């Protein structure tokens, strides 16, 4: 599912309610935060080069973090590297596996 287009979807689409409901939903989302983080993801996705970050998904540390059950011990994974090392791309990869499973 595309996060950009799914930001708010009125569930009920009837004549009396739709526009109010839609506008209010959008207003509430804006009220929660002015940040719109999606544009950057789109750029990274468009520039995506197949295979460039798959090694991360295969790493034992990543798999343990990804699959661990609850608790705070392994809740956080920190990829550390200098600019240009591919961190943003990895973040995309990490987000991608989550989204693709969601459908």
């Amino acid at each position, binding site marked *: 599912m595309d*996060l950009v287009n799914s*930001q*708010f*979807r*009125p*569930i009920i689409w009837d004549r009396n309610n739709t526009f109010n409901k839609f506008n*209010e*939903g959008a*207003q*509430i*989302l804006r*009220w*929660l*935060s*002015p*940040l*719109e*983080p999606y544009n*950057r*993801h789109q750029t990274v996705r468009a520039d995506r*080069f197949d*295979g*460039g970050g*798959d*090694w991360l*998904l*295969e790493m034992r*540390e990543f*798999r343990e*973090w*990804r*699959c*661990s059950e*609850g608790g*705070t011990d*392994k*809740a*956080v*994974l*920190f*990829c*550390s*590297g*200098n*600019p*240009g*090392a*591919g*961190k*943003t791309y*990895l*973040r995309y990869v*990490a*987000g991608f*596996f*989550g*989204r*693709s*499973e*969601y459908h």
Partner: protein
Amino acid sequence: MIDSLCDRAGKENIVVAGIYCDFLSEQEQTTTNIMGSILKQLIGRWEIPYYLRNAFHKAEMELDSRGPPLVDLMEMLKTAIASLPRVFICLDALDECLPTHLPRLLDSLRVIVRDSPKTRVFLTGRPHVRENVQRYFPKAVVIPISPNTDHIRDYVEMRLDRDPEPEAMSEDLRAGIMKVILEKASEL
């Protein structure tokens, strides 16, 4: 590959929220705005939950045009996460977050992970923010990232093959481009 990540992968429902800490908009990147944005993404797929609607109407009644304060957002996040199967929060380029915001941001993440243990947090940043991360998450898994020259070579070749003016390219130029890029990449 994706299914191999986890035995239960195919059966799981996962919600991912991500923020890129872009230095261009660093003034807006307060912890409150970031937490609000995470919440927005977590609920974004469905209809607005009643507790958010109520909080919004209350603020409207009080003619308060500001967004919810951090303490309220944290409670809302806790409620939102509780209603979701699994939540991944990704924060990219932590080093581009203002140093004055970073401790509060990491502390808020610590509270989320403590109160909602099914949350997983994925962070990226330059090596110098590692200390900050470990101050709040002493057991964080740290993976050092360095450029992989094989991937860079493949990528540059792909881009050179797509050159809209191939007649302007020669073998020497191609080899020169590759050499310089790989040298620069190894310095990262």
